[in-house]
């Protein structure tokens, strides 16, 4: 329990850092954000009022602390485009992103783990070589291309699945495959190497010597132990899911946070951009936090540190 509090305490400076970096990023904009938002034809009065509204007439340090206080109250300002609060805009997009991310993660687990286990059991066989080559190819296959390729093949040529947008389960298939290709490869590789380590352990030899059925050895003795190291890449997977989502959601018109971020960048809607970057970073930090916790839960040695 003490470990949980210690780790939780360590999150504060990281979140603070995330906020500080996003704040200064937004304020690094060369030129005047008001000018960019309103365009060349706005009147002097409009500019002054927007400047006041955004608090840009205040000194930078005041702006920083005002924003910090606002963010602590979950107030991220309002969208310049829709005029709705940024938090509302983001929260409205959470279910879609969650659905897509969850589907991709599901695919990665149900495909990646069996492939990794199979490759490890048949080490150096053709199955192993096939899975390994496939995983290198998967890692090199960005959503950038798998997305358009899947649309072209399954939505245009074969006309089996819808091209994009959110809707039925059918709509979910192509975007989630596109998002999960690299993650499947990652999970496969990690499962394989983790299984290989476990299969060399003495207790596996003992189990074999006892004449236990192979299925029981692989799934009961080996896999349950091999799962723990796989958890360490959960942070990596979350990173891939969150950043991949920007590309995949844009390609498939999937109304999640990634698409919101892309649209706000297009519209120069800086409060929303800042909110999205901050929100996604917080999700990422929390995911890493949970990874550490689960790792500590499975491996008591870590708790003492």
């Amino acid at each position: 329990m003490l470990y949980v509090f210690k780790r939780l305490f360590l999150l504060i400076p990281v979140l603070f850092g995330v906020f500080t970096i996003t704040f200064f990023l937004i304020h690094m904009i060369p030129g005047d954000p008001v000018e960019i938002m309103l365009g060349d034809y706005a009147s002097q009065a409009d500019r002054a009022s927007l400047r006041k509204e955004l608090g840009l007439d205040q000194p930078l340090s005041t702006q920083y602390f005002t924003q910090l206080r606002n963010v602590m109250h979950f107030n991220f300002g309002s969208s310049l485009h829709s005029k709705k609060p940024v938090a509302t805009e983001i929260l409205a997009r959470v279910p879609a992103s969650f659905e897509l991310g969850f589907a991709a993660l599901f695919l990665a687990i149900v495909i990646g783990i069996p492939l990794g286990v199979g490759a490890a059991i048949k080490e150096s066989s053709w199955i192993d070589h096939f899975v390994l080559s496939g995983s290198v190819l998967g890692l090199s296959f960005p959503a950038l291309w798998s997305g358009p390729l899947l649309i072209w093949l399954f939505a245009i040529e074969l006309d089996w699945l819808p091209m994009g947008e959110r809707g039925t389960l059918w709509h979910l298939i192509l975007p989630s495959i596109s998002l999960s290709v690299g993650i499947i490869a990652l999970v496969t590789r990690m499962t394989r190497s983790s299984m290989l380590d476990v299969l060399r352990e003495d207790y596996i030899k003992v189990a074999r010597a006892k004449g236990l059925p192979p299925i029981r050895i692989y799934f009961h003795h080996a896999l349950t132990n091999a799962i723990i190291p796989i958890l360490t890449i959960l942070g990596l997977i979350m990173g891939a899911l969150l950043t991949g989502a920007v590309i995949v959601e844009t390609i498939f018109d999937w109304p999640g946070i990634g698409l919101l971020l892309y649209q706000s960048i297009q519209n120069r809607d800086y409060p929303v951009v800042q909110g999205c970057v901050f929100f996604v970073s917080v999700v990422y930090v929390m995911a890493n936090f949970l990874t550490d916790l689960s790792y500590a839960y499975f491996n008591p040695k870590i708790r003492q540190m």
Partner: protein
Amino acid sequence: MKLKAGVLIVAAIFIIGLIGPLLVSQSPLEIHLQERFLPPSTSHFFGTDNNGTDILSIFVYGARVSVAISVLVVTLNLFVGLIIGSIAGFFGGLFDLLIMRLVDMVFGFPGFLLVLAVAAIMQQASLFSVIFALCITGWASYSRLVRGEILYLKEKEFVVAAHAMGFSNTRILMGHIWPNLMAPLLIQSSFNMASTIIAESSLSFLGLGVPPDTPSWGSLLGAGRQFLIEAPQMSTFPGLGIVLLVLGFNLLGDGLREHLDPHQH
């Protein structure tokens, strides 16, 4: 095996980027609206895009752009990471503490998001802004790697001996420690090339990368998205280029790791 395949693919694309532009007859900026969406043929091996521009020509110039940007970014990352990581690892102290907290913060972001935010903010797309954005996060992993290796090497007998002989810190660092960093840095750089190529293409795909008048695989893929029905060749060829180049560097990295990394044996 992996190493050979990796070297072969990477070398092939480097050569395409280097001499390809000399061999194509059309400029990648030429617009022929009457020749839009032509499928691959003998006059246009890869077909034409929505502007009637020869896709082969964009492909070879795009190879040059992709390779050039990634090499530059990786070199910058490597250089900055090596210097910062060396100072932090070798001298320790307050600098080490501050730098490592900064590295933690960079790692606190999902990498590409930060790149995207920086690129979005810099707006006027230019080669410089793309390179700057891609370097924002890249140096951190090199710093962490170099620092870790130096902390380990510092305790080794040959370094202790060099100290005892009265060699200067600079000489020990550059003459004795850095040569031992070659292998891990080479492996890291190979994987960094792969991720930089994806990041650069993704930025250009979203319209936040290279300027519109620079031929690039990512931009062509981004434009091709709208014309998947009329001209799938706009997506196929640049995508193939990206996947091959990234695959080449991933294979190279895997191969180098198997050959060079002493921790693996």
